[in-house]
């Protein structure tokens, strides 16, 4: 599907993050919507998912084809082999990884992907490691940005004795890639520790909880230290997992300055999201830097700064576009909807590993 006004060569863009559970959606579908609605590049979109029930795999109005990939835990060789098979069929020009767990593999494979004709715009391994949740304090200190005390925890016994070391409940128990639980006592913290360790592995992190209002910033790093196209958002409603269900576009110089210093210190290359909290005294505290577009990235298009489209400019080696002032006060409100699909579509993913030329599959095929 050609989703844009033709300009320049047709770019085939593959993206991941097709999961879209209402309480914690992946960013891939939102990135695809940004690319489908931009007008600077002529694109066709390929969706890459990990599970047959990821809804992005069935959004025929958005994706030209969709494929299942091996989970990142299967290793880089399995990822590359599957991508090579998809590449043979689809001739991918650009890959935009949208999930934290797959980005290390994409970084490690950058040169081999380039040799296959697949371009990326990612940080190097050292930059990626420095923004990891268990090392972010180093980057925050280098940038002069406050951050709640954070520590790696290797035994649940820590939560029984931590108050003797100066920790105060509530604490936030976090997975190294995903998940965060506010624990109000040791019992809650231990339960969160076991669940997160089982789901996401070690290390498990503990962070001092900072009460206040949460703010988010998304932008692009150009790799030289510059931050491009920042869009700031305050959550107005959240899901049970704390993910944004509604948000409003804001402009806060303090958040902008802190993020600018962080990205300059990291020399970040690629999309990112900064999450912070403003405490009751008005001071900002850095919580996380996510190494990808956030799930609310469609809002960037909505306020006039289509960051996925700008990423394509950077991937192609073009100068970054000029960004208009974001439309402050614009609001987004998320909603969930059902996608009805023929059995043949689900069958194609389960048994065939994907849906080449997805938009050409007709509903009648499932009924014949």
């Amino acid at each position, binding site marked *: 599907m050609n989703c844009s006004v033709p300009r320049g060569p047709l770019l085939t863009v593959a993206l991941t993050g097709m999961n879209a559970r209402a309480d914690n959606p992946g960013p891939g579908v939102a990135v695809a919507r940004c690319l489908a609605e931009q007008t600077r590049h002529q694109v066709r979109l390929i969706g890459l998912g990990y599970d047959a029930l990821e809804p992005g795999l069935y959004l025929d109005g958005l994706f030209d084809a969709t494929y299942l990939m091996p989970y990142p835990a299967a290793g880089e060789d399995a990822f590359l082999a599957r991508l090579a098979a998809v590449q043979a069929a689809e001739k991918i020009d650009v890959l935009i990884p949208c999930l934290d767990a797959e980005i290390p593999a994409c970084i490690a494979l950058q040169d081999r992907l380039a040799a296959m004709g697949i371009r990326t715009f990612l940080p190097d391994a050292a930059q990626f490691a420095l923004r990891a949740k268990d090392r972010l304090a180093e980057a925050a200190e280098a940038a002069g940005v406050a951050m709640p005390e954070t520590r790696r925890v290797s035994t649940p016994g820590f939560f029984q004795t931590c108050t003797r070391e100066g920790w105060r409940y509530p604490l936030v128990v976090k997975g190294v890639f995903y998940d965060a639980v506010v624990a109000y006592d040791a019992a809650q913290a231990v339960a969160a520790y076991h669940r997160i360790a089982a789901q996401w592995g070690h290390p498990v992190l503990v962070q001092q909880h900072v009460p206040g209002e949460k703010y988010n910033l998304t932008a692009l790093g150009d790799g030289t230290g510059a931050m491009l196209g920042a869009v700031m958002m*305050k959550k107005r409603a959240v899901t049970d997992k704390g993910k944004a269900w509604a948000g409003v*576009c804001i402009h806060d110089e303090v958040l902008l300055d802190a993020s600018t210093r962080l990205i300059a210190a990291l020399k970040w290359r690629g999309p990112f999201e900064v999450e912070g909290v*403003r405490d*009751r005294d008005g001071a900002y505290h850095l919580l996380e830097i996510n190494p990808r577009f956030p799930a609310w990235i469609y809002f960037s298009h909505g306020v006039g700064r289509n960051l996925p489209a700008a990423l394509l400019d950077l991937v192609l080696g073009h100068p970054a576009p000029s960004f208009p002032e974001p439309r402050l006060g614009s609001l987004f409100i998320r909603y969930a909807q059902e996608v009805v699909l023929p059995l043949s579509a689900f069958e194609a993913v389960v048994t065939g590993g994907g849906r080449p030329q997805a938009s050409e599959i007709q509903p009648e095929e499932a009924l014949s």
Partner: protein
Amino acid sequence: MTNRARSEASGELLLPADVLKRLALSDSGFVFDPVTGDSFSANATALSIIRHAQHERDARRIAEALAQEFDVGTAEAERELIEFSGVLRRVVG
């Protein structure tokens, strides 16, 4: 430091000028703070107080302008101004 703390520290009745000036106001009384993302509705008197305060720091002059606009005594307008300034500190601060 919060806006409320800045205002109280300065001993001024009104919120800091930069905070008041950044507030986006609509004729319907909808007020939006583009820095915090907070919004609230203000009645006609409150909206008028904010509009005056965006351009005038002298509380006495604001009260006189309010008195003229709403056809009340200056003392009453001053009381309204003091009361609403406290409310505004809690909402925006």
